[in-house]
């Protein structure tokens, strides 16, 4: 177990800055995930940590020892860093069987033979492969190979375990099972872990903290709940699945409470101002699942008088998603996406063409800085397409 410090890390490939001034600290025994789209620099950061990549700038310490320091020209090779690593392609050596693969790190550390036997058996027991110790690794299923790779990374009780998208080659069901497995092993051993993934669910379910990266820079660091509920930039909000964005002005502010006026329609929404909400331009975002929709005539009957954060719109299209339904609702020229249970527990259904009332709870609105850089064009393109659904 060891704490990790990364300071001012930089790595360029030609003109491209793969990692651009990343600073992080990982506490002893913490499970930290680097999350982001492909090309965001998360894997390069991990490889620098492992010593498989020499950075161009910055410093890395593991357990207080400087393992990489560009200014001081220190570089400890990977084999002397006392780490374990799980590779995306498993990287099991095909000429060795399960036992030999797992025993390899111990043998390189000159552990005595009976001790090797004992610890390999113990680790294989932990990952549930004790019965397959003599099997050639080429004759294992994907899930089993993954567990051998895991056992190999953990067997020498390294100070740090690194995971490079270890689950991305498995099918959905196995992935879910392995996620639980990894969490259990980590809890049992308590080793410091750094995990790289582009899968939000994986990051949320495994991590103590998540580092969201984009273009080689850190966008936000926080607990899974922080990241999910309080994204701090447009990019993070988009990445963790916020679907609805509005440009607006803060027109009133009283302590934490604020009122924002949306562009175009004159609609005012109450919200809780985050750090971004002074008076002036902001961007509001809200999840499709936070909105609720009722037919225009029923809404007022239900809660007469309470029209706070309620807007009128018209359903343009509905998509059944299996257990859920997604409506595309046009409000003052913008199309909002609203997702709810289907069938609706209240028994009310709306269909395309209906006039509806839409309730946007103030606590579900996240207020972002209006000057944020736009997320990847690719994801925006997808949304534009969705917005056009239903229009001829």
């Amino acid at each position: 177990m060891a704490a990790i410090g990364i300071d001012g890390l930089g790595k360029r490939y030609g003109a491209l800055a793969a990692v651009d001034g990343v600073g992080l600290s990982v506490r002893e025994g913490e499970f930290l995930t680097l999350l982001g789209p492909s090309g965001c620099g998360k894997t390069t950061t991990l490889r620098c940590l492992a010593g498989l990549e020499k950075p161009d700038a910055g410093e890395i310490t593991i357990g207080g020892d400087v393992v990489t320091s560009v200014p001081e020209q220190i570089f400890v090779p990977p084999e002397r860093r006392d780490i374990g690593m799980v590779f995306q392609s498993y990287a099991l050596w095909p000429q060795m069987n399960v036992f030999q693969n797992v025993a390899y790190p111990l043998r390189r550390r000159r552990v005595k033979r009976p001790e090797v036997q004992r610890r390999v058996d113990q680790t294989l027991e932990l990952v549930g492969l004790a019965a397959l110790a003599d099997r050639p690794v080429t004759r294992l299923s994907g899930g089993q190979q993954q567990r051998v790779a895991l056992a190999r990374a953990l067997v020498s009780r390294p100070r740090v375990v690194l995971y490079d998208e270890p689950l991305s080659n498995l099918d959905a069901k196995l992935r879910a099972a392995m996620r639980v497995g990894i969490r259990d092993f980590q809890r049992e051993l308590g080793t410091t872990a750094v995990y790289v993934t582009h899968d939000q669910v994986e990051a949320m379910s495994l991590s103590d903290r998540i580092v969201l990266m984009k273009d080689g820079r850190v966008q936000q660091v926080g607990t899974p709940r922080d990241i999910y509920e309080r994204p701090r930039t447009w990019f993070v909000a988009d990445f963790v699945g916020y679907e609805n964005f509005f440009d607006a002005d803060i027109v009133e502010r009283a302590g934490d409470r604020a009122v924002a006026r949306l562009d175009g329609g004159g609609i005012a929404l109450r919200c809780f101002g985050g750090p971004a909400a002074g008076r002036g331009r902001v961007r509001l975002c809200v999840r499709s699942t936070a909105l609720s929709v009722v037919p225009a005539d029923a809404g007022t009957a239900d809660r007469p008088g309470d029209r706070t954060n309620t807007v009128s719109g018209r359903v343009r299209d509905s998509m059944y998603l299996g257990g859920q339904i997604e409506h595309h609702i046009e409000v003052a020229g913008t199309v909002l996406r609203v997702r709810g249970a289907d069938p609706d527990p209240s028994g009310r259904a709306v269909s395309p063409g209906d006039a509806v009332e839409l309730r946007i709870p103030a606590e579900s609105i996240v207020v972002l800085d209006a000057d944020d850089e736009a997320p990847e064009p690719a994801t925006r393109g997808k949304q534009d397409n969705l917005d056009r659904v239903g229009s001829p």
Partner: protein
Amino acid sequence: MTARTLPRGTARAGRIVRLRRRFLPADTLVVLLLVLVVGFLFIYPFLMLVFGAFRTAAPGLPGDFSADGITGAYKDSKVWGTLRNSALYSGAVQVLCLTMGAFFAWVVTRTTTPLRRLVTPIMVLVFATPTIFFTIGWGMLGRDPAGLINAGYRQVPLLPGDSIVNVESWYGIIGVTALKLTAIVYFLFLGSFMGLNRSLEEASRVAGAGRLSTVLRVELPVLAPAITGIAILGFTAGLSLLDIPLLLGLPAGIHVFPTEILSHVTAVTPSDYAGASALSMLLVAIVIGLVLVQRRLLGQRSFVTVTGKSDDRARWDIGRWKYACTAVIVLYGLLAVLLPVGQLVVGSLQPFFGVYGNLTMANYTAVLDDPETMSALVTTLIVSGVAGLAGTAIAVVVTYAGKNSRSRLRSVPVMGVWILMALPGITVGLAILWAYLAVPGLRELYSTIWILVIALAVHAVPITSRATEGSIAQIGTELEEAARICGTSATRTLVVITGRLILPSFLVGWFVAAVLSAGNLDVPILLASPDNQTLPVKAYSLYQSGDAGQAGAAFCVMMASFIVVLAVGWTASLLLRRLGRGHS
């Protein structure tokens, strides 16, 4: 509305095609035809070789059946010495080739050595230089004491003796052969090294192993099946090689299998064709056995095919060692390209071999004025071009049918071609001789260039299959199906889609086969008659009669004409492409 009143267009759109099971679908017909062609070109000569071992007379002459040829060939105690020589020669060559080939492949794919980008072009040159000329070049270089190396050695004062190398020796033939075969071994290794999953190595580093330990415990064991396969392939190539032992080994009294087969036909009167065939059978049996073992080994390819991202960043900075590696690259380039080719050029300008003053063009005048040499040049160009084309076409059709036909016979032609893979050139020549001379009608092909075309095409097929099978395997059936769905006919699809996709590798296969055929000595040496000599045969006889300078001149003329042909082809393809662009 009744069907009768429908307009024609509607009727056409709704036309019902009657589905009937045809007696012989076109597909099966094509495969049957292929079985016949492959049977005639590949299997029949092979059977005739066996048949020939039991004949008392030369091919095409009346004779009896007898086992005398076989007993005669194997009773001779010399044959076992020859077998030992062959094994020793090829084995020693393999040790050198594997080391050098693996070393160069490793330097190119895994290190930051300066000049590493020169290695592949050097290897291409070595591979393309005809073995016969490579051998003549080295023969001139290292024949003591007149060659360039020994002449240079004498210029350096204070060194003992008159010469340092004598290539007409065991060391000489092994060294020269290793220099030549390293190119092939290198290309075979290159694929394995590039396919090696980098993360296997990284996992070992992270697990606490150093670089050397990783190479020894992970990389070499992972590549073991590939290394063994390449070693076997190289060993068969060494066993089959004629040129170097013939020119450099025989003067030193070293006999190997191919030279022994040749001397049964050419060194005794009357020629002992039966004995030659009997010896060939043993060589063929050994080679086929080894090829089968090799196929078996490479069949379990799960070791090497796990590929990872092969990017430049995983290269090792090997520090000061990179200068040592650069030095090895330069040394190899010197020994395998500059020296032998340089010697051929210098030799072609010398009035007499070993005379370093008074350079003249006399050899060129002699070569260009000699109608026999000029006709040999023309024959070589035509024969190699046509044989390369035919060999590539056969390989493509056989591979394509093997992949796409639904006929149960589809794998028969593939097997037929594969079984005879790596058949030594000298036995191909001998087998063709038996197969065509013994049959009236086919007999007339002898003394025309067509017998050479057929033999060289047959001999080229293993290489052209190698060059084209990858691209054929990669053409997804979906691409063809998509074209059919879009309304293209089956035949048109074959030409426009499939043909277009195969074309680049077809051209590469054709080019490689043509270059190898043009430099081939062991196939035409038994088949060529005075009317259909090829340049390698001519160069061999020039060298034997002491006209090494003229052989050098012939080499330069042949290379020059190759360059002209290539330049014309390249310009033509450029023009065609420009025209094509103009159309679209």
